[in-house]
């Protein structure tokens, strides 16, 4: 559908007065990638997206899309399109005119732009709603229209600002799958800002985890989850225990942890802990503990393992792990 182009950020910085929102980040996103910018609020992910889109000026550094330095270009000249968090559909225009808006601005005649807009509405299965106003649509439908509107300029890159945050949990999972399908079909790069690690894991080819204006770690979801580089990554991505050992801090996946009765001899590593909570989660049992180092610990063990050696809150146990499955943190 559109030309393939890789995106490169070269020490891109955003300052608001004295505060640095984005601190000299370098990032390469290959063409056709589903990339998630992940991080807590205020980490600079939205500023980064808005700089790529051209809605925020770049304080320092360059943004290169394909062979073009787009740092100073206006949004419409960059080959990017943005889907806004609240969808930003024009309330006074019909669905069809919303989708055709960009073409109207560039002077395309009415029959041509309406035909093209209908094609895109078909792509997102919204062609039956062409005559409606945005307020007559549900959240999920509005999002599809916003997608169609963003795609009508045939962008090389679609930028999505927390696209799923306004939807209820059920719809969120459904739209998530649809975004992924659309990205696969179109073959263009999607850059998706989110603070939900689960969303990023499910969608991304490339997860870029940001914190304090810097990139903390980037890689495929599996790389990031299996080898978190820092304590922040391990905690943010979830499912990990951060344990202080004699050789420094290590991350241990909750589902790799083992529980023993106090005094058991075990040839791996372990620390003693007191059980604070036991939750049955269906496919596994989640046991929360307070470790002797003062940190919270979580173990996810299978139902069968739990039944063979049940524990109750208040009980002292040994939280153990195989050193081969632990990842040293910087």
């Amino acid at each position, binding site marked *: 559908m559109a030309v393939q182009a890789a995106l490169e950020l070269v020490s891109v910085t955003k300052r608001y007065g004295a505060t640095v929102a984005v601190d000299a980040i370098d990032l390469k996103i290959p063409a056709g990638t589903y990339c998630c910018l992940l991080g807590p609020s205020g980490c600079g992910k939205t500023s980064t997206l808005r700089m790529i*889109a*051209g*809605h925020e000026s770049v304080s320092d550094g360059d943004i290169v899309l394909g062979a073009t330095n787009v740092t100073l270009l*206006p*949004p*419409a*000249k960059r080959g990017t*399109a*943005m889907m*806004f*968090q*609240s969808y*930003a*559909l*024009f*309330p*006074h225009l019909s669905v069809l005119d919303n989708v055709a*808006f*960009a073409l*109207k*601005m*560039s002077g395309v005649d009415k029959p041509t732009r309406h035909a093209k807009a209908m094609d895109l509405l078909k792509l997102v299965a919204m062609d039956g709603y062409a005559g409606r106003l945005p307020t007559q649509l549900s959240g999920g439908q509005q999002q599809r229209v916003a997608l169609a*509107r*963003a795609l009508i*300029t045939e962008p090389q890159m679609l930028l999505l600002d927390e696209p799923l945050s306004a939807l209820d949990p059920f719809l969120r999972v459904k739209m998530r799958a649809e975004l992924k399908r659309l990205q696969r079909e179109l073959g263009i790069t999607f850059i998706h800002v989110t603070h939900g690690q689960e969303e990023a894991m499910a969608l991304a080819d490339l997860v870029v985890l940001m914190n304090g204006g810097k990139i903390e770690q980037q890689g495929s979801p599996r790389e990031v989850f299996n080898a978190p580089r820092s304590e922040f990554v391990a905690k943010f991505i979830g499912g990990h225990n951060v344990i202080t050992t004699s050789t420094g801090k290590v991350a241990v996946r909750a589902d790799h942890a083992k529980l023993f009765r106090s005094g058991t001899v075990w040839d791996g590593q372990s620390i003693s802990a007191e059980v604070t909570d036991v939750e049955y989660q269906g496919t596994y049992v989640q046991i929360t503990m307070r470790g002797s180092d003062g940190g919270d610990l979580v173990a996810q063990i299978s139902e069968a393992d739990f039944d063979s050696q049940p524990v109750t809150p208040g009980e002292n146990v040994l939280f153990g792990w195989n050193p081969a499955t632990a990842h040293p943190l910087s």
Partner: protein
Amino acid sequence: MEVSSLRRTIVSWLQAGPMVLVFFAFFLIPLVFVTIVSFWNYNDYEMIPEFSGRGYTDTFEGCIDQLPQFCTILRTYGSTLKFCIIVWALTLLIGFTVAYFLAFHVKSKTWQIALSLLCTIPFWTSNVIRMIAWIPLLGRNGVVNQVLVGLHLINEPLEWLLYSEFSVIIAFVHLFTFFMVIPIFNSMIRIDKSLIEAAYDAGATGWQTLINVILPLSKPGIVIGSIFVITIVMGDFITIGMMGGQQIASAGKIIQTRLDAIQFPAAAANAVILLIATMMIIVGMMRLVDIRKEL
């Protein structure tokens, strides 16, 4: 369930009650009286409570005989309508621009409030004083003429600055632009800023965004402001009298003259005619925008 819904109905009527009473006592009932009186008879010194169309026929006297020339009443309404259109266009242009500046260029809420309050300063003095203040400025030996003569831009003072259509329009625009600014500002402030970014993202220029996004979404404010300005200008006789040097006729002035002559039925008939004319303009405007939908 039914008790609580009944209570809700009572409470909402109680809340709307004071306004309903004021509306009935001071607007609807007088209006009914005016309409009734407009169909009474009258002679040179009193009104006679019997049905008569004289109030209306006197007003339109000679209008058919004089065709193709317009009779006094039609010429007066024409002149009032002309003021109305010019003042409406100017207040709309200036009001829209000021509201745009306040809503989109002034970033902080505090400054927006401060600057809107600044717009109300003309209302801190009375209407009459504000009009009188134009005299030393626009008069034959006023500041403007002195400066123009002093700069040798003109040889002798301009006569049309004061007591002319020009000065009437200036006074109207000065007095009523505020009534455009506030409702338009109120509409604009509710426009989601991301809509403007979305337009920019779609390649719209600033002008295209103004025409395709901001203007249509400001329509409710424009209509409310326009109703204010049009109803005030249509019924005005003080501003046109004072700034026009009592030389320019207006629809409101006709009513005043009839009242001075104690011809109450004729005055009432003129009031009804003015009401109908103004209502027609407003209904026309409402047709352009379905205001209930937009609100």
